[in-house]
Each structure stands twice: as structure tokens, then as C-alpha cells.
């Protein structure tokens, strides 16, 4: 992940309804109260795609359909995804996971209509989260979507709600820099 929230790498495609528990991450990691990024990262999306869990590289981009990350807002999947340095562009995300992904600092671009029709597994793709631009360098297509609101981009760029709060507290003089 770069400061500018620009990603470039391999495209991994998923359909609609990639659930949070047992989709993004096996629920047992929540059950066992595991929060350590290095322990979670190797298991991201393992229930749906063991190949992704093994092979995805930093800069790679998930292209998924509707209701990405739906379900109980356990943070384990997002912690793992962020640690891997992978971004996501999805057709829709419901309110609770929308907040979860921002909070956990997952670089993502929601409400990208029909994006799953614009990229195939293995395409070379590029995503600029702050600008809302998705480029399929394999097909040559470039798509423009509405970016997330600025405050939310700032949270994601800071690495998530916790790091953003820290920044705000320092700015407010409530904790030492």
C-alpha cells in the first residue's frame, strides 16, 4: 500500500455475497480471539479460495460483486486483508461492513457498478482509491467511480480508525506526538 492508496497487480475475481465470517476469514479465528495481523494474513479468503490465501501478493486487487464482507462485523478478515497489502473494488457493500472496512483501514472502493464484468482473474489491474479510478491494463479499459468521502479516505490512509484517532489526539494535544 502506498500513501496515495494506489494499487497495481493481479486481479482476483469473486462473485456476490463474499461473507465476512467463513468467507473473508474462518470464524474460528474470531472464536479464538486472534487479532495478530501476521497470524491472520496467511488465511485471508482461505474458505473461498485457498489459492488466493497462498498466492496473492501486495498490490493485488480483489474485484467482487454485491454485498462484499456481509455479516457480523468481526475484524479478523479485514485485519488480514490489510496486512497483505491488497485492495478491493466491489459492486456493493452493506452499511455495517462499509464501516468495518473503513475502521480497519482496508483500502477499498465500494459501489463500483458492474465492475465484475470489466475484469477477469489474472488481468493486470490498477486501482486509485482516492480518485476512484480502476484501470484494466490487460483489456485497456479505464473506469471512473465516485471515490469515498475525504474523511474516510483519510482514515484508510492513516491505516484505520485506531491510527487516525491517534493522529487526531496528537493534533488536539491530548497525547504526546
Amino acid at each position, binding site marked *: 500500500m502506498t500513501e496515495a492508496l494506489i494499487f497495481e497487480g493481479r486481479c482476483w475475481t469473486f462473485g456476490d455475497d463474499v461473507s465476512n*465470517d*467463513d468467507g473473508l476469514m474462518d*470464524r474460528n479465528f474470531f*472464536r479464538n480471539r486472534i487479532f495478530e495481523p501476521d497470524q491472520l494474513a496467511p488465511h485471508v479468503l482461505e474458505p473461498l479460495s485457498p489459492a488466493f490465501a497462498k498466492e496473492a501478493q501486495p498490490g493485488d486487487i480483489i474485484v467482487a460483486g454485491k*454485498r462484499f464482507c*456481509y*455479516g*457480523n*462485523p468481526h*475484524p479478523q478478515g479485514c485485519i488480514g486483508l490489510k496486512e497483505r497489502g491488497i485492495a478491493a473494488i466491489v459492486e*456493493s457493500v*452493506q*452499511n*455495517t461492513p*462499509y*464501516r*468495518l472496512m*473503513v*475502521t*480497519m483501514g482496508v483500502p477499498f472502493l465500494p459501489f463500483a457498478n458492474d465492475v465484475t464484468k470489466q475484469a477477469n482473474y489474472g488481468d493486470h489491474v490498477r486501482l486509485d482509491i482516492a480518485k476512484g479510478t480502476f484501470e484494466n491494463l490487460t483489456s485497456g479499459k479505464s473506469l471512473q467511480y465516485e471515490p469515498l*468521502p475525504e*474523511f*474516510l479516505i483519510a*482514515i484508510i490512509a492513516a491505516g484505520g*480508525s*485506531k491510527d*487516525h*484517532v*491517534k493522529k*487526531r*489526539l496528537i493534533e*488536539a494535544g*491530548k*497525547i*504526546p506526538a
Partner: protein
Amino acid sequence: MEKTAVEKILARVTGQAEIKPGEIIYPEPDTIIMHDGHAHKFLRELCEMGVKDLWHPERIMIAMDHRVPALNPSIAQSHKETREYVKKYNIGHFFDIGDSGITHQLQIERGFARPGTFIVTRDGHSPTGGAVGCFAISIGQDILPYLALGNSWLRVPETLRMNLTGETGPGVLPRDVAQSCAKLIGPDQADNRVIEFGGAYVENLSIDGRMVLCNIMVEIDAVSAFINPDQKCIDYVRDLTDQPFTPVTSDDNAQYAETLELDVSTIEPIVAAPPDPDNVMPISSVAGKQIHQIFIGTCAGGMLDDIRAAASILKGRRVAPGVRALVAPSTQRILEQATKEGLISTLTQAGATIMVPGCAACSGSTGPLADGERCMTTATSNKPGRMGSKNAEIYIANAETVAASAVAGKIIDPRDIVSPS
């Protein structure tokens, strides 16, 4: 412009005159709620950052509800840590084991959720507070900025109006209505919306019943649910607290994103079969399936109305051999009232096990299911793995259906017991 109640509440807590759906706002809550499953973790994170004072510690409520009493030394340690942070940060309201209950009921019972108030919680089912005209939302992991600085972002939700008319038939309880609404609305129509319930059915409903309606909308990922406070609600809250409140209601011509109607007289007793709470079907379609456990409890089904309904079925009857019947009143006060009314002895005489007030078996931490087992429950969710094994099946139904099935040892229509033919 005419406004919904939620828009008015958000205008107050942001100091903005106009609030528009879709806009990003930074509201300040009247109360911030956490429980033993996470409070220690969030407070530790702030402590490690060097935070000396919280934004408004007197606006924070923590209750022990998820893993009580501690199930192992590691949980005991986290409970101890929570108690230490409560002292360190002068947290205003702490409910420890023996005087606690599920936060979603406790917020009402102890007077935090009052008409016109705004509450944020980490846990999901706080929209239960909408039963008393409170706008309560779950902000998930994003609780740190509220604790430390008093605000975070919120995308202003739209409001979907759900009108409920008619009267329910025999064996149909608010839970059946709530699940039927969840099915009718569905996750797509609920997304980034508040579900506002109204209509003659809601006006006649008890506050416990209103809690069920609001609670279940979480399962289709609504932002929250809300019922305009009427005199019944105001009297109920006045009995519970001396804290002041200003009831807020939607204007007659408020702009709703959508309005749906449901005649509750058309609803039969239902079950929600695995794998989702909105997989709602008539009980007849699954009747006869053998069960191994029942569980009556949780923020969706452990209120006094639920305990009364279960006891009305189990009075003078026995739980079938091979069925474990677990009952957990949502709060300590509900347990006390149920004891006073003789309901607890009715249940234990029937062979039920009374669990500690709190979430109990809902998160699978106590009374989990083994592979291949089947459970009937009033709990919130039936997703595979919710109560133990992923290879167990959870069926959601109302408290009468669940109790009747415990007696039969299999899923049955409660009307077979209530009005035998």
C-alpha cells in the same frame, strides 16, 4: 421540510439544522455502550496511546453480559482488566455480574435509551433501543474515536417506513411478525436505512414486543430501527428513570425512502431455518424434525414476555427426554421478576435449566451444539456455527413454538399444544 424522527435526533447531536441522507456527519452520542467481550481491549488501546482522560466518562456504560461468569482463567483476566479500566477512567456506569444483563435490554431498563436520545455501541443489536424512541446504532470497531474524542463519522441513513396493520392469530407472537418483516424487507432494502415501524399493530404492542421488532432488523443489516414514542412508551420510560428526555417523532409528511405494508393477520407461526434469519417459512414445512436442544433467551427472545410465553406452555408439562432446555433471562431484573411471578419454578419443574442472565448460548460460549445436533431457539441468529459446531442446525421461532417443541422433542406447531384439536 418535514423530517423523520431520526433526522431530528441527528440534527440535535450534530448541531446542524438540516441533515440529509447520504451526507457524512459527526454526531456526539448521549451514551456509549460496551460489554465484557471488548471493553478491556478498547480501553487498553487508548491507555497504550497515552490517553489520560476520556471524552465524557459519565456517558459511558459497560455491562458484563457475554461470557459470564468467566468461563476460563483467560476470560477471568479480561474481566479483571475491564474492572481496572472502569476505575482508572472513572467510567460512569458499570454493571457487574449479579446486577447486569444484555446491554441491549439494559440500555432501556436502566434509563439510558430514552425517547429522543442517541446511543452508539460496539455490539450489533443496540437498535433494540428504538423500541423506546431512542436512535441506537452499532458502530462496530469504530468506538475508539467516540471514547476518546466524542465523535466519529456517520453516513446519514434513509428511513424505510414499515406499517403493520391487523391483529395476529393464535400462536403468533411479535417474533413471528419481526421475522416476517425481515423476510419482506430483506437485506437489499434495509441497506443503509433505518426501519421505522408504525401502524395499529405496533400501537397495541407491549414494549417487549417492540424491542423484538427493532432488534431483528439488525439481522438484515439495517442501520437501526425506530418506533415513534407514544404515551405507552413515555410512561414505560418514566417508570424506569428520573433522567429527563424530550420525545421526538417523525412529521406526518416526512420523506421516507420507501413505505411497506404488512397485515399481520396473514402471518402464521414461522421458523427461520438455517442458514439465515430471513430464511423464514411456515412451521409446517419443517415440523417433525427431531431436536436436541432448545434455548430461550438473548436480546431478541429473553424478555419477560418470552419467559411468560415459555412458562405458559411448559406449565404442568415435561421437556421430552433427549432435549436440553436452556433458558436465560436477558437481565438480572427480568430473572427477579420471573422468579416473583413463579415462572422460574414452572420452568425448572418442567426440566429446564436456568442460565445466568446475559447472552448465554447465543454466541456459543455456553451450551454450544455438537456436530449433527439441532436446536430450536428464540436467539438472534441461525447462521451455521453461531452456537458451536458449524455442522449443527439452528431454527429460530417464537418462545411458545420453542417451548412446545421442547415438550414434543421435535419441531411442532405451537397451536397443537395451545389449542389441541
